[in-house]
């Protein structure tokens, strides 16, 4: 949000969001004209249940420095339990990422409902700032080269 210094590193943030809650929540951020940093690129999915390990891996491989996965709050999932599956998979996934030595600080899992426009803005800013601090995720390239990711 703050004026950016030209030389500053600008992270690439990829967000996987569900259509029903977070995508709509981000729309609300727009209609409320709440400002946030423009580093994020949103990929719309039907449900966070659709997010799998491969997608995140691909995004890092393609040079994303940070990733957001966000869907409906538990119990509010449009598909009744898709986000439970996402959460369960998330645990396994976390272990896997830890195992290969990936940097878990670069992935944020969150819930943003269709009514939480302000939360979306705050989330994007927070993740952007954190990842900017962390610097470019060049380490991941090394993991790929080492054949683990």
């Amino acid at each position: 949000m703050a004026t950016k210094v030209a030389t500053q590193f600008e992270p690439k943030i990829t967000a996987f969001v569900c259509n029903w809650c977070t995508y709509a929540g981000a729309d609300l951020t727009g209609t409320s004209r709440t400002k946030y940093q423009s580093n994020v690129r949103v990929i719309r999915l039907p449900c966070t249940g659709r997010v799998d390990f491969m997608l995140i891996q691909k995004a890092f491989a393609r040079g994303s420095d940070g990733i957001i996965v966000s869907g409906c709050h538990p119990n509010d999932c449009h598909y009744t339990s898709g986000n439970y599956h996402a959460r369960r998979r998330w645990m396994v996934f976390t272990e896997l990422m830890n195992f290969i030595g990936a940097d878990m600080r670069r992935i944020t899992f969150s819930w943003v409902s269709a009514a939480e426009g302000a939360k979306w803005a705050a989330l994007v800013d927070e993740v952007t700032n954190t990842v900017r601090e962390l610097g470019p995720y060049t380490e991941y390239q090394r993991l790929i080269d080492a054949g683990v990711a």
Partner: protein
Amino acid sequence: MSRVGVFVCHCGENIGSTVDCPEVAERCKQMPGVVHAEDYKYLCSNPGQNKIKQAIKDHQLEGVVVAACSPRMHEPTFRRAVTDAGMNAYLCEVANLREHCSWVHEEADSTTEKAVDLVRLQLEKVKRNKPLQPIEVPITKTALVIGGGVAGIQAALDIADSGHKVILVERSPALGGHMAQLSETFPTLDCSQCILTPRMVDVSRHPNITLMTYSEVEHLDGFIGNFKATIRKRARKIDEELCTGCGECLQKCPSKDISDGFNEGLTTRRAIYVPFTQAVPNIPVIDVENCRHYQKKKCDRCVKACPTKAISFNQQDELIHVDVGAIVVATGYKVMSTEKFPEYGYGTYPDVITGLQFERYASASGPTQGVIKRPSDGKEPETVVFIACSGSRDAAKGVKYCSKICCMYTAKHAMLLKHKNHNSKAYVFYMDIRAAGKNYDEFVRRAIEEDGVKYIRGRVSRVYEEDGKLVVKGADTLLGGRPVEIKADLVVLATASLPNDGQSELARKLHVGCDEYGFLAEAHPKLKPVETNTAGIYLAGACQSPRDIPETVAQASAAAAKVAALLSRSHLTREPIVAEVNRRPAPLHSDCTGCFLCESACPYRAIGQEEILDRDGIVIKTIAKINPGLCQGCGTCVATCRTKAIDLHGFSNEQIFAEIMSL
């Protein structure tokens, strides 16, 4: 696909003031696969839409990206526009430049840069889009209503009145459920049977309703619009066609002294019986367990008594298969029995009764013709203690919830007692008074203020018998927890409402969920209160949670409206966003290895199994099969499948990877 057109919208100043729209269009022209790009002030306007249609024709476009507002706004508009120009609707994607970009960022190069990226994302996706057709599902225009209490009766009548066929399945021999047992009903004190009986008759006469009593749903297959149900019609041992309901048989049966369920065990019935006088249908049923013909191989007095030869000992259960398009579950509730109360005598004191038993005493059609008596000696009680929250809100007894109806019926009971016996004394022990309906609190106040019912705030610790009285030891918490003792002639427990017997088995058969207590679960507590998680199956009444008649009937009508709306359509149209298991040439047949992880992950139980047979009909492989009628397109299975055998139309792996790679 490589002939894509991109259309960038200014939305007046909404997008144009922070994003350099002409620049975006210009940059898009450079992108591989883009054969046309332009920007315009208001794309959703008629001239805007015409521009798109024109471009499709002029440039033989095979795909379109509209860079404008949120797809949640105008995606349908633009999809309609492209179809007008002869393109498949699903070859049009929308990039969200307004809500996700121009409105949330300051004017800057980086903002325009983001806009370009957002278009590129959709461009890469649309290049891989496949034409899809909305799925059309035919609908069987018959509804199945399970349970014939007031909820089922109301739902059946409403659906039937809307012109659709209804099959009403009731487990017991007669319609009516608990409401048929009640005396007068709060908050108006109108006679329960007087208002219910005409409706039961309506059901039996309605040309659109097929009534199946003494029957249960045995099995269910299929999906919304196309369910297949198997119903077990239990043998009444009476030929329903021949029986005239004359009742001759009932008088002659020597097997007496069987506890009468309708009267909550306060009276007895015979082995051949009609549950109650106004029963619909008025056809007896033989209780095989107690009938001497079956147990002792002799008797047959009913056969001799029957003028129409309707007794049919050889009658067997029938399995009936029906096709239905929608289902309403209305299986009601039951009440906790007094045996669950060690502190009140484990159900051994005859004069400690449930509220439902009190209803039978108070009912004009009950065992005492509406005179309140007590079971032990048939005397009219002078002092009656009512204990609210009996078993409800009692984690130690396994019921944490409030049963919701008992505050009101307890006030009613106390009031009825005072009306019927002016010299009687009524005490109510309560924890809180929950009377939040229309005219409800007024009703309770009337009991207190006009009828002089004594309300004591506190629970009862113990009831024991002494000198022919029941000593009720309670506390008055408004007096600081001071113990109080009342010597009563009758104690009425407002026992907790519980999920009905067999309800969880039924839920499993229907693939609908239960809550932690065993009540049936709605799809969303606020916005989908009558739907279940299974499309086409709806809930009504106390099977979902304890509730009173007004709420039950309102919900039954709501469920009926949902069913009527569904059955009024010629077919169902669904977004073609469904998953599919891939097929490959033999010998692989499919990447699916048959692990069926997807089956358990799918929240809609849309995934079943399919056997691949060779020419001789021998199974070579069992793989997953997705029913497009049930699949809602969440994509959970796709993420679950380790061999990537499943893909989701509209959000395929290829499309999403392409989006990622475009960044």
